[in-house]
């Protein structure tokens, strides 16, 4: 007869390494979890160190208030970032105008009107849109959307803010739709039923009950999507052109912060030149912009969370 299980257990538990593993594993996992913190620190340090070098060459105020971005000039290079910010905002504005109504409308349809089956099919398909690589969108903007726009509005140039704006908008629709739908689905069914039982139409329920109740989530989704639009790179690099301009024209070539970084990276970012450091200063500005949007999104969804 074999020894009892408890005896066997006692024998094998005599070995000590179980205890050591239990002590070491949390430390290892903590170190692994710290990688994300290191990454953030790495990003911030990388950007800050090179940006500081940049500011030893270009005065800080010239950078943030300058309205001319002319980095490649031989005689009189100018690094006023406002034109790049304006370019970024143009694309973001158009993307927002395209994506917010469509995204929210789709979210309302999915959460309020569509049957469970329809939603289960449509939502993942919509999310495929979010998984399409941006290079593909860029190619699409340049070779399809722009020519169509030009055939309708001849004054639109081959590089412009509108076409990439629209396509960036298409790209962020799923983000708004999906996150807003989540927020709206989180509104308890019982509240919806309460409204329906009073004789509300579905639209009244959606518009007067669900949307207001989910507003913080919807706004947060929009803010996150806008943040994505600000940081979007390939679509604008391919289709928006590379002319930093401080004006309100959407039909001609512009340049965004991201596209500038790509432009310099593709070309001659002679290590140690002011131009080289300028991409970090621009990157840092971009980082600050998107970080502000992310913090804002977090704040909105916390601060304005509806209780129910």
């Amino acid at each position, binding site marked *: 007869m074999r020894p009892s299980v408890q005896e066997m257990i006692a024998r094998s538990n005599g070995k000590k390494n179980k205890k050591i593993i239990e002590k070491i594993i949390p430390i290892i996992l903590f170190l692994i979890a710290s990688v994300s913190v290191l990454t953030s620190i790495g990003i911030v340090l990388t950007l800050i160190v090179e940006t500081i070098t940049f500011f030893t060459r270009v005065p800080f105020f010239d950078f943030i208030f300058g309205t001319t971005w002319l980095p490649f000039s031989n005689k009189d290079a100018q690094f006023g970032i406002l034109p790049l910010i304006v370019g970024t905002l143009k694309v973001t504005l158009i993307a927002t105008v395209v994506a917010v109504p469509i995204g929210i409308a789709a979210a309302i349809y999915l959460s309020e009107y569509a049957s469970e089956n329809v939603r289960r099919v449509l939502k993942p398909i919509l999310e495929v849109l979010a998984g399409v690589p941006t290079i593909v969108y860029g190619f699409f903007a*340049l070779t399809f959307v722009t020519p169509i726009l*030009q055939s309708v509005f001849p004054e639109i140039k081959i590089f412009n803010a509108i076409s990439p704006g629209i396509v960036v908008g298409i790209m962020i629709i799923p983000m708004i739709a999906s996150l807003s739908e989540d927020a709206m689905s989180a509104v308890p069914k019982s509240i919806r039923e309460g409204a329906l039982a009073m004789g509300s139409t579905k639209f009244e329920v959606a518009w007067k009950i669900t949307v207001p109740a989910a507003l913080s989530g919807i706004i947060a989704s929009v803010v996150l999507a806008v943040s994505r639009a600000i940081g979007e790179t390939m679509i604008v690099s391919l289709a928006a052109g590379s002319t930093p*301009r401080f004006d309100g024209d959407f039909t001609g070539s512009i340049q965004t912060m991201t596209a500038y970084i790509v*432009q310099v990276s593709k070309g001659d970012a002679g290590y140690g030149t002011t131009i080289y450091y300028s991409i970090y200063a621009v990157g840092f500005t971009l980082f600050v912009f998107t970080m502000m949007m992310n913090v804002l999104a977090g704040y909105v969804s916390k601060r304005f969370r509806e209780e129910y």
Partner: protein
Amino acid sequence: GTETGETSSETAGDEAVAEGTVAGDGSSTVAPIMEGIVEEYAGAQPDVKVTVGTSGTGGGFEKFIQGETDFSNASRPIKEEEIASLQEAGIDYTEFQLAFDGLSVVVSQENDWVEDLTVEDLKKLWVEDGTTKKWSDINPEWPEEEVVFYAPGTDSGTYDYFNEVILEDEDLVSSATLSEDDNTLVQGIQADPNAIGFFGYAYYVANQDTLKVVSIDGVEPTNETIESGDYAPLSRPLFTYANNAALADSDAAYDFMKYTLENAGAMAEAVGYVALPQEAYDKGLADLEALK
């Protein structure tokens, strides 16, 4: 792209010499030639791994100075500062000429007024002077439309060259779309009758169906006019600069460079540049031989 670019691989290739890696970077103007050579060379010497970046002439030299590359392509001669840096880094190098490039000034085919511009016209158009340029400023008969400018990235060799001979170190008009991406330029100019731009001759050749080339002081860029020097001042030689130590130490680097010089002329023609006279390649091969 023309079909004539299939070069022979008689010489260097047959011996199946080397294995190893060869790294180059630099001018995107030279890139089409290099791309062709690398492609053919890979057929001849599959064990040699050649990578060629396209960081632009200046960017290429930067890496060359850091010792990161074995050769560096350039669409202008090396600058004094770059020579100094190389000396400081203890890097000996040799300059090889690869081909001629005609810098082509092009407009859209929808542009039915410009045929010819003088060097002065070009300067007037391209220099930043605070005004908004209209076609009618050059010739009152031309439309009173704003000129739309396209130019290669300002830090490219192509730009440097244009800068030197046309702008004479004045600033390029600030409304220009600058792009390292040649397709950006081609597409932009194609689509807009008021556009004007310049870039390497090869890119014009590749897109001659959709673009219209402007003659300069009455001379249109062609193989003949470029080689003969009649297309002035907008034609220039293209170079590659090789690290002497790399050529001496690495069979692969030596073999690749030899192959390059043997095939550069044919490849240049194939991709739309103009070959140098054969003597120039022979001289290069002799210089190379001496370094072995």
